[in-house]
């Protein structure tokens, strides 16, 4: 019997959560809505069974709460993803834990981080073209095979997930953690891997000007990845809160933009012309070379499309929600590129584990909650910006 936060199928609650968070007061009360209305409960359930010989049980030590998890809880995640999950499932895909069974490459008791993507090898299906070329995040067989549908551990009903006392993982998903890396850093490995993948997704020319929209975990780690792995030139970060600005400066952002000022703040440095449509926000003719959209909100993507020069690239790192006017995409001949998870072709996770040890990431995971205080944890995560926190995680060792 394990204790787990279980997301179950309840159309009523889903719609209620979605409806409530759409209103203005609802957005302010997001934390309490995720705690009380969303179809998630703390239950005792049976431990997940091992689906095959290459699998091990993993006891999570720390498991982070991601923006996509919050989107799931508030009902803002797109229904497109619904066939890619099998309910009831236990969320939690940013996991550092210890294995309980012996595997050829990973003996029991190893501390590992999880690459949550459940690809062909985990599903015991013949490899699709993407898995064959090492791009598991694009796997086509994500809904078939030995497991239920589930794009990642944390969305699959058969594997359990990070927000529980036990989950199961395939050997390919495991990446051992070096001893000197503490848990608080290791749990950042998965979001770091996503950020690393995002900056490798497109060619970042040397000296290119980049703007990052959103200074939460995704935005800050994208900034780190840009500085460490590419030769980008000036990188601007759009940050709302004071603590985010401090951290961005530590990560060597060129300048910080106030989202209230938005587009205007980049006008001068890119010597662009700014225009104000009768409806909608301003846009630049001219602008930066690339934009990384890291908020997952429609306004973020909208801003990104309006800030980028003709022929430029917009990378959507955050899971988008809601509609956006795509006229700039057409008119300025932009590239809109999606970046999801990470893959093994370029060993993103190894790079992520290396970057996780950097001293500048000190204090990114400072608040940890036991499962018993899950409503507080969601409330905190939903208001993380206001409350001065970057990432909130569950501490599964506190029973």
């Amino acid at each position: 019997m394990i204790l787990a936060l279980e997301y179950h199928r309840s159309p009523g609650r889903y719609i209620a959560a979605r409806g409530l968070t759409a209103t203005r007061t609802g957005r302010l009360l997001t934390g309490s809505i995720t705690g009380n209305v969303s179809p998630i409960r703390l239950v005792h359930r049976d431990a997940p069974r091992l689906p095959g010989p290459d699998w091990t049980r993993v006891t999570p030590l720390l498991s982070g709460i991601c923006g996509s998890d919050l989107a799931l809880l508030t009902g803002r995640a797109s229904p497109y993803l619904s066939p890619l999950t099998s309910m009831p499932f236990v969320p939690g895909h940013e996991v550092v834990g210890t294995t309980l069974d012996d595997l050829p490459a990973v003996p029991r008791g190893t501390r590992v981080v999880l690459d949550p993507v459940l690809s062909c090898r985990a599903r015991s299906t013949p490899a699709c073209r993407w898995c064959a070329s090492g791009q598991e995040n694009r796997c086509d067989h994500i809904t078939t095979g030995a497991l239920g549908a589930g794009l990642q551990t944390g969305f699959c009903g058969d594997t359990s997930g990070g927000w529980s006392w036990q989950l199961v993982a395939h050997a390919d998903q495991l990446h051992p953690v070096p001893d000197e890396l503490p848990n608080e850093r290791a749990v950042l490995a998965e979001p770091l891997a996503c950020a690393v993948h995002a900056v490798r997704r497109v060619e970042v020319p040397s000296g290119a000007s980049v703007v990052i929209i959103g200074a939460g975990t995704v935005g800050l780690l994208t900034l780190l990845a840009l500085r460490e792995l590419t030769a980008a030139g000036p990188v601007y970060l759009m940050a709302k809160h004071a603590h985010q600005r401090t951290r961005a400066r530590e990560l060597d952002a060129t300048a910080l933009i106030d989202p209230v000022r938005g587009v205007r703040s980049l006008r001068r440095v890119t010597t662009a012309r700014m225009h104000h449509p009768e409806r909608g926000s301003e846009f630049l003719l001219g602008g930066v070379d690339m934009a990384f959209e890291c908020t997952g909100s429609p306004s973020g993507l909208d801003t990104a499309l309006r800030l980028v020069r003709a022929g430029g690239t917009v990378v959507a790192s955050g899971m988008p929600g809601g509609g956006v006017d795509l006229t700039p995409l057409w008119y300025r001949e932009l590239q809109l590129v999606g970046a999801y998870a990470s893959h093994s072709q370029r060993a993103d996770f190894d790079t992520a584990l290396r970057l996780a040890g950097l001293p500048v990431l000190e204090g990114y995971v400072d608040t940890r909650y036991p499962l018993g205080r899950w409503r507080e944890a969601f409330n905190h995560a939903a208001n993380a910006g206001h409350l001065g926190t970057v990432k909130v995680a569950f501490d599964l060792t506190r029973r």
Partner: protein
Amino acid sequence: MSRPGFVLQVDERTPPLLVHEGEGFRLEPLPLGTKVIYPPDSLPGLKRLDAAIRRALLNPVGIEPLPELLRPGMRLTIVFDDISLPLPPMQTPDVRQRIIEQVLELAAAAGVDDVELIAANSLHRRMTPAELKRTVGDRVFRAFFPDHLRNHDAEDRSNLTHLGKTGSGEDVEINRRAAESDLVVYVNITLTAMSGGPKSVSVGLASYRSLRHHHNVHTLRHSRSFNDPPHSAMHHSYDRMAGLIDENLKVFQIETTLNNDVFPSATRFLNKREWEWSIGDQASYLAIRRANGMLPPAARRRVWQSTAAPYGVTAVHAGVPAEVHPQTLASVHRQQLTEVDGQSDIAIFGLPYICPYNVNSIMNPVLVMSLGLGYFFNLYRGRPIVREGGVAIFYHPVPDEFHPVHHPSYIDFFEEILTETTDPLVLEAKYEEQFATDPWYVQLYRKSYAYHGVHPFYMWYWGAHALEHLGEVIFVGGNRKTTARMGFRSASTLADALEIASPVVGSSPSISYLHAPPLVLADVR
């Protein structure tokens, strides 16, 4: 499980914190990064207090058990701390009542007839019969008042005995009845680390001639702090005097310590950490604050002065003062001590409505100064929480009100003397003697219920160390006239106070806030 005291760093998640300001309190959002010093959680009080008292009386340290010291025909004097302790007054029955009753029971069983009870009020005002009754209880009051239960009179020359001078030339002159007794039983409440021990008899029953040897500017400036006896020049003086007293007198001292249950249950939220306030606590806060603001001043004063604290007694120790006191101090520290790392540029203190000298009375500006710059500033061990030359910000309205009966000398001190100078050394040299020997003040002290003429000076000296140490003193919400008279600044909000402070400490100073009451002793490294 009582949690120890700790230092909070204000961050984005911290709700506004409670600050006391005279007869009221408010929630103040403190700047990010402020260090807030919290006392340990209130310890549980002894469940069987009478049994604990009995145990202490029968097992004292350094002296025989009390029954063995009592014999027929002896002269027994029971001395007890006056109304300046505890603060706020304890809910009845007072712990002194319990102790005195047990002592008297033992004395009656031993056949002692000659018993006197004396309130050790030193140069404080005499206690009224009602106050005496509240402290010692009905039975004792009816049996001993008015002939054998009285206040100490420090100006009654015929009833003072000069015991001699200490090695440093300090006169020791105490109450004659006590000096000529076979046994003095002292019933003490050690509320802070300052009281108890050698202070009890040597100060409580002393006269002006004795007191001026340690209640002076020089001694107080070298008491760093007077809540830390090993480093307090004042306590060194007490020790010397107590040594001389011990040679002449047998003292059986019973010391008690209290927990931090200072607030009655209706205002329990005042004792809780703000982020742990429940909805009920928040509603209580709002209701009480609004109601408090709507009361007329006289009614408000009555309400506040009539509050009694549901104190629990954490320890009772008895024996020879020198040997009992270390145990008592350990109990005090267990309840009040919090470790603090380093000093800061600015210290914030929220001053409550009560100090030792305005029980059932009015807090005048001089008393505010002594409470803030004296008592609260000196709640440290090691180093003050604010650096040398830093700024202290106090919250108090500092009303221009004086109690004409209790504090007559204060009125003249404030109106006539402080306008001349506020320098403690000048005050001491030029004016103290006059006030101490003025016959009208002496008469009011002896016959009425007034503090001794010299008392306002002592209040000023209490803050002498702080006056020397600080660069600026600002009162938030303070009356402009009274604060200016005393040489301080006033501001209407914290933001304004910080702005006034900025020439002294810069525009981004480090700030500490001592979250008292309840009392917390900061152990500053």
